[in-house]
């Protein structure tokens, strides 16, 4: 089934078709809110990962740092 156009944002964020029950139940606004919450969670995770990768290097012994940096970049 092709989801209604108002569900496309959520489908795009999920990378999969949302459960039909939710599509039938939620309003356009609610579907959008859910999609935005997921998008925001992805952004936060990505940012956290950027910082974590930088910080991680600081914990790696000097002798391994070059190799680790090569893997991470």
């Amino acid at each position, binding site marked *: 089934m092709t989801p209604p156009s108002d569900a496309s944002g959520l489908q795009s*964020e*999920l*990378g*999969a078709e*949302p*459960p*039909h*029950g*939710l599509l039938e*139940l*939620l309003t356009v606004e*609610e579907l959008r*809110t*859910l999609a935005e*919450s*997921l998008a*925001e*969670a*992805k952004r*936060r*995770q*990505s940012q*956290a*990962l950027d910082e*974590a*990768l930088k*910080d*991680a290097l*600081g*914990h*790696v*012994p000097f002798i*391994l740092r070059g*190799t*680790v940096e090569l*893997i*991470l970049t």
Partner: protein
Amino acid sequence: MSVALETRAEIVKLARVLGVPADELTYLERAAPEDLRAVREQATDALFEGDRHRLHKLALVSRIIPSVIAARIARWALGPLLSARVTGLLDPSKAVDLAKRLPSAFLADVAVELDPRRAREVVERMPAKQVAEIAGELTLRDEYVTMGRFVGYLDDDVIRAAMERIDDPSLLRIAFVMEGKDRLDHVLGLIHEQRLATILNAAEHEHLWPEALDLLAHMSAERQGSLAEIAAAQNLLESLAETAYADGLWDLVLPVIPAMSTATRLTLARLPIVENPQALAAILHTAGEHDLWAALLPLVEHLPPGPRDQVAGLGATLDQAVLEHIVDLVNDGGLWSMFVPLAADHMDAVGRERVAQIIAHVDVRVINGMADAVERDGLWPELLRIAADMRTDQLQRIADRLLKVGLEQRLPALIAAVEQTGLWDTGLRMLGELDPALQQRLAPVASTLNPAERSRVAAKAMDLGLLDALGPIATVLAAP
């Protein structure tokens, strides 16, 4: 667990995945729990897939650095969320080795964020002692939903160790929200009887009967029976029944009744709450609403006279189809010795007439089952009282059916019952009202009586002025 509570638990889990307070997702409260679970798993996958490439790189790094350093990076650089994301990508033995070097508090943080589907092998390999420590930490934080997600992935030994660190009320709360409740029966089998008793006591003291009853609903009949016995031995049935009434949870209690011992059923049937007409009405309403008559009927025979009257009174007002269904269940459950006296002695004339009407139309199998039970348990007097309210056409149907299932073999017992109870008038009047064709078929049955019995019946019929009405039967009775 009710659908509303299941939905609530799913909202809490989804809020975790999205990193938002659960209160921000109240618009999902109308959603079905299975839809929320599906969207949560999709969201977890999306979050993972979005950074898969970089998470893989982190996992690669873990292969070339010592565990002690990897643990430091996890704790101080990645934090719990990213550590949880990367866990499933690590070599499981490396992940377990790494976890050994991390404090339980941090691992508890990771557990909150971890998707056990993606880290199954790591979770399964975690040592019991460490899982128990994490469980203790999660218990301190009231993280029941988190723990409930992992139960399905842990071995028995690990679960046993973890349960040692979780207090009784928390165990009930975890069981209430856990995923894969089909495993609950097995998990409960790991708990010693003494602990089960303290858990049930916690249900009373901490007002957790709804959780305990939900647990009970997921048990096998055998374990339901054991738990009911423990509850009875701990004098908890009254508190359980009061909660079931107050919270509308009889649908969880009634199915347990068939698994109870007779003594426990008797205890339940004699609780003060059962004498409360509103409470009893609620029980009957629940039995009707959820078709739990088969579960309720074994309790009825233990009820005191007052509640029995009420059950009979309410029973008499049930829809015809429901009453017919109950009569079938009575026959299947061998409960005629409860049902016949209930109808005969506790129902009013209208109720008896309705039962009579049903009995007149049930199939031969049921008639035969009833006649066997009536003969075995000496219930002919009660049955005659029900028959006394039957219309002639109904009596004819019954007589016709009884002829098909060997009435002649039952006749001596019936006559003995008539003699014993002095119900000659009822019995002979019924015979007299049958049409001549049916009387003709009954005549050979009457001839199977011995001469003394025949002459006694004939004398009674004459006394009551009913001999003529017996037609061909009278001829047989009068024969030498």
